[in-house]
Structures are given as C-alpha cells and as structure tokens.
C-alpha cells in the first residue's frame, strides 16, 4: 500500500528545499529563463518560412525599359534583393555555385523587341533549389509580378491582349535539386547537426567529469601539460566523429539516395575542420561548467540558436539582418553551406574557400580561449 497522506509542513519542506536548490544552481536557473526567451525571439522575429529579400544576381542583356520594369517589380515584391550585376553569364554561374546568391535572373537581349512584337518574351531564372523551401515562395510570386510589370509598362492596350494569350514565359531552372526533394537538403545538413550535437556535448562533459569527480586535481598534480590533456581529451572524439560521418554518408546514399556530385576528399577535409572547431567549443564550455549537468545545459544553450539560425531548419536568407549576423557566428552555418555546396553542387575548393576560412577562424579563436581558460592550477 502506498501511503497517500500528505502533511502540509512536510510538503512545504520539500518545496522550499527545491526552490532554494533551483536558485543556487545559477546556470540551470539561467537556462529556465534564457531558453524560452531565446526561442521566443528566434521563432518570433528571426524565423520566416516565406523568406523574402533573397540575394539575387541579374544579367540584363536587354537593358531596355521593359527589362527595368520587370526587375523593379521583382524588387518591389520583396522576394528578391539584387545584390550583384555580373557582366557575363559565367560570373553569374559562379555566384550561384558559391551560394552567394540564390537566384540568377537572365534577361535575354531580345526581351523588349519581343514584347513590342507581341511575340512570347522569355525570362530565364536559375534558382538554387538545394533548399526547396527557400526558393519556392519567390518563384511562385515571380510569374505574376513580372507579367503585371510588363503589362503596366506596355499600357492599356496590352491588358486586353494579356487576357487573350500568355505574354511572358518564365523559364525556371531549379538547380542542384530539380525535383525539390527536401531530403537532399536535410540529410547533408543533418551531418552537421549530428556532429555538432555529439561532439560539443561529449567533449564538454568529458572534461567536466574530471572536475566533478575530483580526478582533475590529481591529473593536475601529475606532470601533464594543458596541451597534452586537451589533445588527449579531444582526439578520441575526432574518431567518434569520423564514424558518425561514415554512417550519415552511407545512409544518405543508401536510404535517401541523396546525390553526391562533389569531391569526397574536399568534404572530408571540411568535416575534419568542422569537428575540430566543435570539440574546441566543447572544451571551451567545459572550462565554465562545474558539473556534467551544467555542461549539458550550456551545450544546449549553444546548440539551440545555432540549429535555428544556421539555415538548417529555416532558410538562412529569409532571416532579418541581425539574425543572419548571429547565424554567421556559428560554425554549423558555415559547415552547412560547405556540405551542401560540395554534395549537391559539386563545389570546388575555391567556391567554399570563404566558409572554410571562417571555420579556421573559429578554430583559432576557440583554441586560444580554451587554452587560456584552462587552469593548470586549481586557482
């Protein structure tokens, strides 16, 4: 029989004790307040499932007033933000391959002539469809927006005409993921997310465990240097990371048939760089956390915004400027771009050089902080 009687004073005793402990554990307390506020801000302001202001490059070979009308209307629609005006198509191709722009709009030289002739004019749009969700809204709006602009530009007479036949045809090339399969986007991204989740937490907890169990005092009293301890702690997790990479890549190929068009060597080199930045991050966290529980909570505090702002769950370009700036501060953001570019777009070293150098910056930064924060003494 379970004793169901409740003494108010005893219940109160437990309640009071719980509240005191909750207040004492500052990190847990901060998490309880911080996590909901962070989620509220991120979901409320940063995340947009119908992304606008997407970076677009335009190659205007026509240069006439019809072309201008179409581009102005596209910009006014809010979906497109013209960031580049490459002189040649090849340059435009490079921009989209490196991920600098999501769309490449090509206006053929004969647009104006065709409109005047009443001959079906064409606009060519190359869309980076690695993330189908990011491009779909803009592409959906494009047809109507451009058509209206042309009609307005042509005047009254055209409106009647417009009703009778299709005037403007927009040719859309969905690049890299023509069928818009969302797995193609998500599975490579998962590689980054899984690595981040485990690497950061494992490293953070591994080191905190030494402090929590009191073995750190002993370790420090013996002749081991901070670099030796740090490397010794980190290298095993690099091995674990390698296994995870193989598992995800095999699953991507076998289970989800995600295409792999790029260089495996390049991907592996990137993974190594990424994992290194993650374990250093974990190491960094472990210099703050006193218990494994705190290490886990701090990991989550880092994990949550990076998941939401990295472009894994929601289109990166759809977020407001401040959210994009924060997003740029997470290694995951840069790794996602690399892994998607290499796997789906077949990007070469040059195309991902910037993202890679960002990862290198993180590594340098984290390593420096981790080593300075590491206490060789117990001070």
């Amino acid at each position: 029989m379970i004793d169901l009687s409740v003494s108010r004073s005893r219940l109160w005793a437990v309640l009071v004790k719980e509240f005191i402990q909750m207040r004492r554990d500052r990190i847990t307390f901060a998490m309880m307040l911080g996590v909901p506020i962070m989620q509220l801000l991120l979901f409320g302001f940063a995340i947009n499932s119908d992304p606008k202001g997407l970076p677009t490059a335009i190659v205007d070979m026509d240069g006439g007033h019809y072309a201008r009308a179409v581009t102005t209307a596209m910009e006014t629609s809010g979906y497109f933000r013209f960031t580049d005006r490459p002189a040649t198509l090849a340059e435009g191709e490079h921009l989209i391959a490196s991920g600098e722009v999501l769309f490449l709009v090509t206006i053929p030289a004969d647009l104006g002539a065709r409109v005047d002739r009443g001959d079906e004019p064409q606009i060519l749009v190359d869309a980076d469809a690695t993330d189908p969700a990011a491009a779909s809204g803009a592409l959906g709006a494009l047809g109507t927006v451009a058509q209206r602009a042309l009609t307005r530009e042509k005047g009254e007479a055209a409106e009647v005409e417009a009703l009778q036949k299709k005037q403007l045809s927009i040719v859309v090339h969905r690049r890299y993921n023509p069928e818009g399969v969302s797995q193609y986007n998500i599975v490579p991204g998962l590689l980054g997310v899984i690595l981040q989740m485990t690497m950061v937490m494992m490293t953070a907890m591994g080191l905190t465990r030494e402090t929590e169990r009191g073995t750190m005092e002993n370790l420090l009293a013996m002749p081991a240097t901070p670099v030796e301890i740090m490397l010794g702690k980190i290298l095993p997790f690099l091995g674990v990371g390698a296994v995870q990479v193989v598992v995800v890549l095999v699953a991507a190929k076998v289970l989800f048939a995600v295409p792999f068009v790029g260089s495996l060597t390049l991907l592996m080199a990137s993974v190594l760089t990424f994992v290194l930045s993650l374990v250093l991050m974990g190491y960094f966290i472990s210099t703050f956390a006193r218990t494994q529980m705190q290490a886990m909570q701090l990991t989550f505090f880092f994990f949550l915004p990076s998941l939401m702002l990295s472009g894994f769950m929601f289109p990166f370009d759809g977020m407001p400027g401040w959210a994009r700036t924060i997003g740029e501060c997470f290694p995951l953001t840069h790794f996602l771009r690399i892994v998607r570019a290499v796997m789906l777009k077949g990007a070469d070293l040059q195309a991902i050089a910037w993202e890679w150098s960002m990862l290198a910056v993180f590594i340098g930064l984290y390593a420096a902080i981790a080593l300075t924060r590491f206490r060789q003494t117990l001070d």
Partner: protein
Amino acid sequence: MSIVSVQGLTKRFGDHTVVDHVSMEIEKGEIVGFLGPNGSGKTTTIRMICGLLTPDGGSGTVLGHDVLTESRSIKRRVGYMTQRFSFYEDLTIAENLDFVARLYELSPRRDTVDRTLENLGLTSRRDQLAGTLSGGWKQRLALAACIMHEPDLLLLDEPTAGVDPKARREFWDEIHLLAADGLTVLVSTHYMDEAERCHRINYISYGKLLARGTVEDVVAGAGLTTFVARDAPADLARRLHGLPAVEQVAPFGATLHVVGADGERLAATLAGVTAETGIRFERGETSLEDVFIQFMARAEDNMAGAGKGASS
C-alpha cells in the same frame, strides 16, 4: 638542504585570506604532521607546496625548485594524495596504475605496475574496478599510485579519513618504512594518535601557523595545567564550567579532565571545589588534544574579538 623551505606563503580567495604568511621547513626523511581545524588552510597550503595553486605572496623552494615559478619540476618529484579518492573509479586497478605510470613516463612500465600490484597485494584483483574497492583499499591504491614514480616528497591530505583502525595502523607503518628509506612526508590529519606518530607537527588555524615542533615541544609550549578527577559525579562538569581559570572541562569515561592556562589560579579554584564537595583533583598530563582544543578556543576568541572591532 631542506626539502621544503617556504616563507610567508599567502593565499587569498576573494577577500578571504585562507593561508596567511605560513612558513615551513621540512628536512629530508622527516614525517611532519599538519594539524588544524576544518577550513584552517591545510589543504590550500599543501596545494601551494605541490604547485596546484599559485601563492599570492611568499617565497620558497620545494626540493630545491622555486615554489612560484617551477611548479612543473616540482610536480615531477612530488607525490600528492588528495583528500578525496581521485583516481578513476571506472578504470580497473591495473588500468589506473598504468595511466599514472604512463603520465610519469616510467619505464619499464609493465614491470613497475606489476611490482606495485604485488606490493599492494592486489595482483589477483588487478582487473577489479577501482570504484568497487572499500575505503581502506582505495586509500592503499591511491598511496601506491602516488609513490610509484618514487617521489622525494610525499604530500598526504587527510589520508586516513574514514578508514578503519587496522588499515590506519598499516598505513602509518608503511609511511614510516618509506621515511626510513629517505622519503619526506607532510601529512595533514585530525587524529591525535596520528599526530603523535609524526616527527614534528605544525598547527595551523584560520590560515595562521600557531605552533610547530615535536609533540612534546608543542605540549610544553602551550603551558597548560591539567587536573584529573576520578569517579567524578555526573554534575561536576556543569559545576566547574565558568569557574575562574577553568578553560576546558572534558569527561573521559568516569574521569574528568580540567585544563587551564593559569595553573596557580586553577589549583586554587579546584581546592575550593574540593573543600565544598570533597572531590579530589590530581595533577594530570596535558594531552595534545587538550592543547589543540585550547588553540581552537583562543582562535575563536580572536576571531570574535576581531569581528567586534571591525563592526564598531
């Protein structure tokens, strides 16, 4: 040459001075006891000596190396046994020893570990997880791991807390054997019998070193007078409290120890009690424990006085 020679070691945590100008000399082959109440700064002092904490003030050498700048060299030649068991409970006994042997780059490693296991009498249990050992065995394992690299100085921080009397006795026999071979030992403890097994003792309270020397020196230096009443009635202790010159009243079974710093006044007070009750008091030997209780009471008075001074 002194093994440990430190002057004015000071450590502050925030505003709190945990160790306040502690000086210490330890000669080769000595076993020096380090005594003091909880929180008096024993552990902090030991950690400064072995290079785990950087002193905020003071200077000195440990094994000839500068205590402020050469903690790496000190660590190589010091064995430090922490208060809490700080080897890996999820590694086996042999794996723990192997880990330590590798850290100190001992060679031949395997032989060293095997020999250590044999000396410990743990060869048959080498694959047992360290976490499953009893308190006494954990302590023996920790000691074995600390001396495997044959250090010149052994620092023991309350090594026998929570260990049964037989294991304690064996532990101390081992310490004396090691000292006979030339190892120098600094050991902190709360146990008076352990203090009496040391060549010399240092007494620290609230971060300040209050007494040092042999047990006899410390007892004599305290200048206490002790009287003993045999077959004392139960209410005698209560009656004696607060009488002039009576500073400590402690029952030991049926006998009662009465201690005071002013021997003549104490004798006069007790003569008065004898006249009143007929209970007789004899001169007794002052024990180390009496001395420490006295130290602690004085330190508390000082602290209370200082507190009042600061607030007024």
